[in-house]
């Protein structure tokens, strides 16, 4: 896994409000895995750590912490959902 890449992260709901934008770009060297991405985002935006949960989605699927990330992936932070 190369870290010589940038990542675009889509933000929804309260994470969009916390970060202040609906898409954030992390320049190279970007986090290589979901776990690293979450750690990096929580470092930059401590309010994310106060949420009940914050998952990461990769290409429309919930991703585990060890899942690698690629520039072409559609990546999103997923705060607690509340549909229905």
């Amino acid at each position: 896994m190369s870290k010589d890449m940038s990542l675009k992260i889509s933000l929804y709901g309260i994470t969009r409000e916390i970060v202040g934008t609906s898409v954030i770009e992390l320049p190279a060297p970007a986090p290589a895995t979901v776990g690293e991405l979450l750690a990096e985002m929580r470092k930059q935006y401590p309010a994310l750590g106060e949420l009940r949960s914050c998952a990461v989605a990769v290409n429309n699927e919930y991703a585990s912490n060890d899942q690698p990330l690629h520039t072409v992936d559609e990546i999103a932070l997923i705060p607690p959902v509340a549909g229905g």
Partner: protein
Amino acid sequence: MIPHLSITDQPIDVAAALAAVQTEAAGAVNAFIGTVRNQSGGRPVRRLHYESYDSMALTQLGHVVSQAYEKWPMLQAVAVVHRKGTLALGDVAVVVAVATPHRAESFAACQYIIDTLKLVVTIWKREEYEDGTEWVAAHP
């Protein structure tokens, strides 16, 4: 039968969702209709806003419905329509409708779909009160 799944910013046509699942082979239709309540945890609600990550919401909804078809092979048809955007009190937020040949399974499958939808489908709700707004369930 291909399930009828959608996320829309237009008012939900409940009758159309019900019609989408009715067949002469299935004698039982169960439908759950979620509407906007005038209070939440005792606090008066003025209106609410749903935000959706559509492509993921539809992907996850597809998974939920596939799981329901696996659990209840007799399922004949499923429709799920979720509203997004700004909703007034009493507006329909979600409709789940399922059709089965027999009654008990229609209740079980419909309840499974709405319960699981609420856990995994990427839609967020912001309630608007007299004195502010809140993203529902966001904080412990």
